[in-house]
C-alpha cells in the first residue's frame, strides 16, 4: 500500500515541477520577446492576452497543428529523439532545486540528494545530445555544422562549469544543493560550528561566479554564444529542417534550459531562498523565516507564510538571472566561434583551476587557524 502512496506522491511532484517550470518557461519566452522589444525601442507582442502573454499559447497551438515534415534521408529516429533530449533535461534540473523553506533552517526540495550538484551537471549535459542529434538527423551540411558546434561548445563549457562548482563544493564539503543554500544562509553544520558562512557565493567566490555565468550562457546557447543557431549564418543551424512541434520542442527547450540555469545560479550563487538583507536587522544566525516561525510558534500559518515568502524570493532571483540573459543577448554581438573555444579552454578552465587552488589554500590556512579573517 505504501508503495502506491509513494508513487502517487512522486507523480504529484512530477506534475507540480512540470507545471511550474512550464509556466516559468512560457513566461520566459514572453518575457524575452517583450523585454527584448523594450531594449529595442519597440513593443513586443501586445495584442493577444493581457500584456500579450497568450501569444506563446497561440504560437504553440499553431505549431501543434502544423505539418511535421521529414526530409529525404533524414534519420527519423534521431530526429524524433533529438527534440525530446533538448526539451526534457531542463525539467529534471529544476526538480533538484531547493525552492523554499518552512523554518529558515532546512530547504524544501522535491528530491533531496547528496550528489545533487553532480547529477544536475550530468543531466544538463544531455541537452548537448539533443542538439547534436538534431544536427545529424537533418541530412544537411549546415545543420550538421550547427550541431557539431553546439556539442563542442557545450562539452568545453561543461568542464568550466564543473570546475567552478568544484570550488563551491570544496568550500562546503558537501555536494548537496540544500547544503549549499544552508551554507549561504548560515544554518549549515560547519557554519554553526564556527566556520564563517552566511555569505552568498557570488561574493565569497567571485571568480567561480564569473566562470559559471559565462559558462551558463554557453551552455544554453544564448547570445553571444548562440553559434549553433547563428541565425545570420546557418539559417537555423541544427533546427532548420524541423517543423511543427519538433521545432517547438527545440525552441521551448532552449528557454527551459535558461530557466534551469537561472535556477541553478540563483541557488548556487545568490543564496536560494535566503533574503540576505535581513542580516542587517537581525542578530547573527537569525533570518526572517526563523523569526516568523518562532513568532507564530511554528503553527501552519507560519509554515504557509514562510513557504510563500521563500518561493517568492527564489522566483525573484531566478527572474533576475533571466533578465540578465535577455539583457546580455541584446548587448553583445556574436564574435567568432574560434574565440569562443579559445575562451572556454584557455581562459575559463585555467581561471576555474586557479580558483580551486586558491579556495583550497584558504581553507587549509583557515583550518590551521593561520588566518582568521576569511
Amino acid at each position, binding site marked *: 500500500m505504501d508503495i502506491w502512496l509513494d508513487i502517487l506522491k512522486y507523480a504529484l511532484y512530477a506534475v507540480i515541477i512540470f507545471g511550474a517550470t512550464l509556466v516559468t518557461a512560457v513566461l520566459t519566452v514572453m518575457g524575452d520577446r517583450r523585454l527584448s522589444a523594450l*531594449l*529595442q*525601442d*519597440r*513593443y513586443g507582442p501586445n495584442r493577444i492576452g493581457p500584456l500579450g502573454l497568450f501569444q506563446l499559447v497561440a504560437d504553440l497551438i499553431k505549431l501543434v497543428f502544423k505539418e511535421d515534415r521529414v526530409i529525404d534521408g533524414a534519420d527519423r529516429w534521431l530526429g524524433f529523439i533529438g527534440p525530446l533530449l533538448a526539451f526534457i533535461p531542463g525539467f529534471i534540473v529544476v526538480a533538484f532545486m531547493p525552492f523554499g523553506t518552512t523554518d529558515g533552517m532546512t530547504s524544501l526540495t522535491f528530491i533531496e540528494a547528496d550528489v545533487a550538484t553532480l547529477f544536475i551537471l550530468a543531466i544538463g549535459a544531455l541537452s548537448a545530445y539533443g542538439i547534436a542529434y538534431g544536427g545529424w538527423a537533418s541530412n544537411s551540411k549546415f545543420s550538421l555544422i550547427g550541431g557539431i558546434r553546439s556539442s563542442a561548445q557545450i562539452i568545453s563549457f561543461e568542464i568550466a562549469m564543473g570546475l567552478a562548482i568544484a570550488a563551491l563544493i570544496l568550500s562546503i564539503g558537501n555536494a548537496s544543493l540544500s547544503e549549499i543554500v544552508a551554507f549561504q544562509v548560515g544554518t549549515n553544520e560547519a557554519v554553526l560550528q564556527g566556520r564563517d558562512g552566511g555569505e552568498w557565493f557570488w561574493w565569497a567566490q567571485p571568480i567561480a561566479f564569473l566562470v559559471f555565468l559565462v559558462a551558463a550562457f554557453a551552455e544554453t546557447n544564448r547570445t553571444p554564444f548562440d553559434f549553433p543557431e547563428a541565425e545570420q549564418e546557418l539559417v537555423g543551424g541544427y533546427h532548420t529542417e524541423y517543423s511543427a512541434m519538433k521545432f517547438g520542442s527545440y525552441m521551448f527547450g532552449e528557454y527551459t534550459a535558461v530557466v534551469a540555469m537561472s535556477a541553478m545560479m540563483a541557488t548556487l550563487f545568490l543564496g536560494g531562498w535566503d533574503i540576505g538583507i535581513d542580516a542587517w536587522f537581525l542578530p547573527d544566525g537569525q533570518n526572517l523565516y526563523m523569526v516568523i516561525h518562532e513568532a507564530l510558534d511554528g503553527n501552519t500559518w507560519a509554515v504557509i507564510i514562510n513557504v510563500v515568502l521563500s518561493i517568492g524570493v527564489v522566483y525573484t532571483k531566478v527572474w533576475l538571472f533571466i533578465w540578465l540573459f535577455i*539583457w*546580455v543577448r541584446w*548587448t553583445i554581438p556574436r564574435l567568432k566561434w574560434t574565440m569562443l573555444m579559445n575562451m572556454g579552454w584557455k581562459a575559463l578552465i585555467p581561471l576555474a583551476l586557479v580558483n580551486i587552488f586558491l579556495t583550497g589554500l584558504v581553507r587549509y590556512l583557515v583550518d590551521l587557524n593561520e588566518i582568521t579573517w576569511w
Partner: protein
Amino acid sequence: MQRRPGPADLLDRPMTSGPQTQDSPEAAPPERPSIWKRMYIPDILSGMMKSIRHAFRPRFTVQYPEVRKELAPRFRGEHRLKVDEHGRMKCVACYMCATVCPAKCIHILATEAPEDWDGREKIPLKFEIDELRCIFCGYCVEACPKDAIEMTTKVPRVYATRSEFVYDMNKLMTNDGPSSEFALGAAAARKGPIIKSAAQAVLDDAGDAAALPGLELREAIPTKPKD
C-alpha cells in the same frame, strides 16, 4: 623601422609596392590590446549600460490600426480620375498611362467624345485599374499629359475577392473624399459624410446613369474608420 619578414621574401622578384615595402607606421600590425580590454568585461558592462538606456526611451512603433501615421500629401495611394471645371473627366484616352504602367494594370477602351464636349476627340469608354496588380509607382501620374489621373493618400483598401480590386471608371472618379481620413491621423477618426466629388455631383445632376455613354453608376464603397 625594419620590415618584418613576410611573404615578400619568398617572391622571385622584389615587391615594389604595398605597406610592407615602406617604413611606415601602418606596416606594423596594431598592438595587442591591454588585458583589461581583452577581457571584454568592462566593455560588456558599458555596453549593457547603453542598452538599458533604450528601455527608457519612447518606442517608435505606431500601433496600427488604432493609431494611423500621418501621410505626406505625395503619398501614392489609390488612384483617382479628375474632372475639369465643367464636370467632365479630363482623361482623353490617349493610352499613355496604360503604356507606361510596369504592371500592365490599366485597361482603357476609347470611344468618341460627345459632340458638345468642345475640343475633345476621345474619352474612355472603359477605364479600369486593377489595384491588386498595381505597384503604386506613380508612373501613370507622371505620364498623363492632361493631369487626369492622380494618386490619393488613401491607403489601398483590402477586399475578399480579386474582382473587387478592379476599380472601374466610376469608382475611380469618385475615389476622393475619405482620403483625408487616412492622411490626417487622429483627426481622421472623426466621422462624417463622404465628401462628394465634383464628378459625383455632375452625375447626380444628370440624374441618369445613361447620360454619359458606357458609364454605370455604382456607389462609392465607404471606408469604415476604427473608432
